[in-house]
């Protein structure tokens, strides 16, 4: 309920939201948890395993219990922490993991079966009968497991990623962080101050401390104002640093739009994932209070003492009418003082310590412990033992404090291990765990406000001093009370003493793990699931370690910790994957003819990052094959036009260009005459084929190489490697000109005739023999012409600067159509090349050698080249290797399929009998037959043999004849014609 006169929210700014369909009023800016508590709602969720009723435990991102689902449909957001979600008008929230309702959850029968569901019980049963795991046990377990649910729908919520750079990153804007930022900001360095809260100030907002004689929250507000006025300081609220990575890189998640109704800001990103690069960083993440494991310490209404103060002081909400406090340290007593000052009844403070004084007018029970609690859906009473007896106390809110754990998490992200501090009874960061990062404030174990301010200032000053900047350390006055604590991890008594609230791990589970020899802390964690819930054990891990240490007779330091790993808080996949939904996963590359192709209704298919036309449908054609056959006919009978700009084109110049090409190609290019083109085969250094293509010699020291579309990037990287690293003695320069030139194949018996309709100067067979190249002019525009062929026909490729590409394509296609030809796409291109036995990456798939594809004779023995030595390995020259052949279905009409394996006739289609496989197939309208390319053991020796192609998964078995891969025009008369 609201407490008059407390809190920093404005009563006038009322907003309405629903929780499980019930409408509530809250105040703008406050968290859902605060609003629910203000409305007297205590039961907010069900635990993971036993479906126990649970309430709000904390007031921050470490919350294990109060997880809710926001929204419905594609926008449905599960597992949102009520303690960080800011409410707004129209917010709809539902509880999770309960059916049919939060109050009456059928799955809570699990809790009755709890004696049989001990840690790891599932490893010991559900094994019989064997088939029941998938069919019965697992589906039941899976249905019961999980917390929230995704809707399964896709939506278009916007997520964003961004980069930021600074001199000093300050993580956390409590007293230490604000002081660090003031210190560094005033010194003039570039500062980023990030805090996960909507408002900066940290514990100063939740306590009643004074700083410099001023209310702590007011001091924080003034500090933020001063920082906001500095150009060199960037304030990032709602931003949690999620991970520390190498060389000063930090990940961060900013909750940009979750506090705003989407309808009010449709373009606003929900979240932004930041990559922050900082020369130095100061971790001022504070500390997290930890619970005490006493019997039934999980009832709604039992929460952290610091959370009670947060709700009271910051949000003006009292989580109970009669509050009790159970603690082992001085700090928690301030809860009682603050409550009493606000007019809330304190029914008692139970302190485990014997010699402790009350800080105010409240009943204090020393040497005390809470040994039992009552209340099914909300706390009703507690039973305590203390120095002089036992008693039951009526209470609807128990504030507990087992001490504070410095927030060491980020310091462990690079495999650093925290150090046990016997005075603080907690782990503190180990120096140097993250290069460039220092720790200040409570995160470093400085538990007083003054200690935090001082260490923040000093930490920042030291960090900027590393950067050569002097900062003045000027710290205001504040409380500097000692932090007194006595160890108390668990309390004996009947009933389960919960450690990991969400995963339902209790003290006995840890002891059972130890009993079964899961003594290593990692074994214990994995066996019991302690610390593996959404809060990753933020509040529970240290107590669990203490219990394990006790159970195994070791100290806590020897027991060690599990490893904290990124992210510090859960991060949505949509945020880290922002920009990729739909088509953003990779850039799209469009050819200059793209719109002309789509304008002709050509289906576009991906070729690496490029899009290429599959075929150009003509009126009346019902299947792609009809179109493809027609387009093949263009090239075989008339003329076809195809955009080949996607092939990589690399300009190579320099006095040693020829020598360089001789080194990177298996065959020789220094002997190529100017204005001539040669096919080249490129090997990887391991002796296998990397790529192939043609290279033209444009001048004595000037070549242009083409690569396949698929390997263009790889080849460019390879050439740069060879030139820079292996042959710096060769003077050669490269530049990719793929983008500069739009290039089109013009192929078919009428190709020259077509070209002569567009070229300014006609070409002749004598001047332009097969494999020649040179400059041409089209409408006064200088282009390049190559007489090369990937179809086996008389063909050319013509290139113009890309700005003219669209125009030239339309022109060429129009001319082709006037000559009974037209545009052709990838399907026809594939048929044309298979008919000629030309290979693509379907054949040179990374496991084949020049020997395998019948090109070993091209590998020059007269020079060294990349891949030569390795290609001579005995295993790569074995005749029994699978080698390239053609395959033709014996009756011509049976369709053969790529991916089928080949067997000797009569042999069983099993691995031991495998003779090879088919890589490419097509219906050849030219040969009126189904044909293909493939690899067969010792293939070249087996021409004429019949083999059986078995494609189990497509249900196709066809007898094929092994033949030469060159099906069409084996003498090459047409290409030269």
């Amino acid at each position, binding site marked *: 309920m609201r407490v008059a006169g407390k809190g920093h929210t404005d009563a006038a700014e009322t907003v309405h939201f629903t929780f499980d369909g019930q409408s509530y009023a809250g105040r703008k800016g406050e968290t859902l948890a605060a609003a629910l508590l203000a409305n007297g709602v205590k039961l907010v969720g069900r635990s993971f395993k036993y479906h126990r009723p649970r309430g709000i435990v904390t007031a921050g991102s470490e919350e294990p219990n109060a997880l809710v689902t926001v929204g419905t449909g594609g926008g449905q957001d599960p597992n949102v922490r009520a303690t960080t979600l800011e409410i707004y008008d129209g917010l709809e929230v539902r509880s999770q993991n309960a059916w049919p309702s939060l109050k009456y959850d059928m799955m809570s029968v699990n809790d009755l079966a709890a004696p049989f569901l001990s840690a790891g019980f599932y490893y010991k049963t559900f094994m019989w009968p064997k088939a029941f795991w998938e069919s019965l046990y697992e589906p039941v377990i899976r249905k019961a497991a999980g917390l929230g649910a995704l809707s399964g729908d896709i939506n278009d919520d916007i997520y964003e990623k961004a*980069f930021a750079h600074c001199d000093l990153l300050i993580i956390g804007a409590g007293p230490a962080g604000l002081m660090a930022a003031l210190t560094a900001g005033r010194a003039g360095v570039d500062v980023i101050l990030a805090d996960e809260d909507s408002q900066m100030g940290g514990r100063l907002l939740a306590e009643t401390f004074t700083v410099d004689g001023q209310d702590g929250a007011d001091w924080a507000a003034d500090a933020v104002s001063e920082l906001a006025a500095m150009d060199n300081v960037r304030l990032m609220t709602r931003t949690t640093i999620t991970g520390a*990575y*190498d*060389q*000063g*890189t930090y990940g961060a998640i900013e909750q940009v739009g979750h506090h705003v109704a989407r309808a009010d800001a449709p373009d606003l990103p929900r979240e932004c994932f930041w*990559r922050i*690069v900082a020369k130095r960083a100061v971790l001022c993440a504070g500390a997290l209070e930890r619970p005490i494991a006493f019997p039934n310490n999980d009832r709604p209404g039992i929460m952290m003492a610091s959370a009670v103060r947060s709700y009271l002081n910051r949000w003006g909400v009292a989580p109970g009418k009669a509050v009790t406090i159970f603690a082992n340290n001085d700090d928690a007593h301030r809860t009682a003082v603050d409550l009493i000052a606000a007019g809330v009844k304190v029914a008692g403070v139970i302190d485990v310590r014997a010699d402790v004084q009350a800080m105010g007018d409240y009943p204090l029970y020393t040497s005390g412990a809470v040994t039992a609690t009552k209340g099914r859906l909300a706390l009703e009473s507690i039973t305590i033992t203390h120095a002089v007896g036992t008693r039951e106390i009526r209470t609807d809110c128990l504030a507990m404090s087992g001490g504070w754990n410095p927030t060491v998490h980020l310091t462990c992200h*690079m495999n650093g291990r925290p150090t046990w501090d016997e005075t603080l009874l907690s782990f503190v960061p180990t120096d140097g765990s993250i*290069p460039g990062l220092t720790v200040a404030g409570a995160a470093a174990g400085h538990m007083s406000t003054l200690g935090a301010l001082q260490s923040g200032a000093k930490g920042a000053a030291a960090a900027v001093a590393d950067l050569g900047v002097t900062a003045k350390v000027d710290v205001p006055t504040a409380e500097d009370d000692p932090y007194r604590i006595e160890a108390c991890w668990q309390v004996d008594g009947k009933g389960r003493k919960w450690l990991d609230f969400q995963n339902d791990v209790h003290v006995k589970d840890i002891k059972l793990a130890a009993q079964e020899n899961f003594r290593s802390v990692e074994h214990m964690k994995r066996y019991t699931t302690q610390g593996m819930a959404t809060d990753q054990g933020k509040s529970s891990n240290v107590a669990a370690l203490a219990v394990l240490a006790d159970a195994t007779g070791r100290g806590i330091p020897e027991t060690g910790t599990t490893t904290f790993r990124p992210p510090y808080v859960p991060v949505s996949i949509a945020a880290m994957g922002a920009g990729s939904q739909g088509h953003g996963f990779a850039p799209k590359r469009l050819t200059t003819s793209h719109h002309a192709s789509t304008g002709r209704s050509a289906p576009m298919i991906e070729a690496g990052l490029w899009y290429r036309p599959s075929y150009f449908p003509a009126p009346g054609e019902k299947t792609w094959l009809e179109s493809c056959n027609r387009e093949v006919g263009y090239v075989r009978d008339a003329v076809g036009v195809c955009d080949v700009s996607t092939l990589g084109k690399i300009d190579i110049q320099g006095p040693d260009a020829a020598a360089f090409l001789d080194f990177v190609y298996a065959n020789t290019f220094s002997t190529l005459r100017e204005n001539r083109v040669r096919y080249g085969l490129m090997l990887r*250094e*391991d002796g296998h084929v990397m790529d192939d293509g043609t290279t033209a010699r444009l001048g004595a020291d000037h070549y242009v190489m083409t690569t396949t579309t698929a390997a263009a990037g790889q080849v460019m*990287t390879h050439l*740069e*490697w060879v030139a*820079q*690293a*292996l042959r*710096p*003695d060769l*003077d050669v320069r490269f530049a990719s000109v793929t983008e500069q030139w739009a290039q089109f194949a013009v192929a078919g018996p009428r190709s020259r005739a077509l070209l002569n309709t567009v070229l300014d100067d006609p070409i002749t067979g004598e001047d332009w023999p097969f494999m020649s190249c040179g400059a041409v002019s089209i409408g006064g525009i200088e282009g390049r012409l190559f007489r090369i062929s990937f179809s086996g026909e008389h063909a050319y490729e013509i290139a113009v600067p890309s700005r003219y590409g669209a125009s030239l394509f339309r022109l060429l296609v129009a001319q082709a159509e006037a000559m009974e030809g037209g545009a052709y796409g990838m399907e026809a291109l594939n048929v044309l090349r298979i008919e000629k036995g030309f290979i693509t990456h379907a054949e040179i798939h990374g496991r084949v050698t020049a020997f395998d594809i019948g090109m070993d004779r091209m590998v020059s023995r007269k020079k*060294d*080249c990349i891949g*030569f*030595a*390795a290609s001579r*390995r005995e295993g790569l020259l074995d005749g029994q290797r699978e080698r390239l052949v053609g395959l033709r279905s014996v009756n011509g009409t049976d369709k053969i399929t790529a991916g089928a394996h080949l067997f000797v006739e009569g042999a069983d289609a099993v691995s031991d009998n495998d003779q090879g496989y088919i890589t490419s197939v097509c219906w050849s309208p030219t040969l009126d037959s189904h044909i293909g390319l493939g690899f067969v053991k010792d293939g070249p020796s087996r021409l004429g043999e019949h083999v059986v192609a078995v494609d189990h998964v497509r249900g196709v078995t066809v007898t094929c004849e092994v033949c030469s891969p060159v099906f069409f025009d084996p003498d090459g008369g047409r290409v030269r014609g």
Partner: protein
Amino acid sequence: MRLPCPICGERDRREFYYKGDALALDRPAGDADGGVWDDYLHNRDNLAGVVRELWHHAGGCGAWIVVTRDTVTHEVHGAERVGKAKA
């Protein structure tokens, strides 16, 4: 992770392509013994500690560089361009 490109200065790891141990710079002669080539192509010291390795600033200037880096801590000790251009 960030790497110091000798040309461009310190840049994000995403701009770089990794090849492997810097021994790839010491390419054997084409007619060297099979064992020598086996060592070159396949076998590695693979140290847990400071190594010299090859990176390519593919998303930047295009330089191939040798980075000295610790494979345990990921600390980077320096970087230099491969090879020596003809003077």
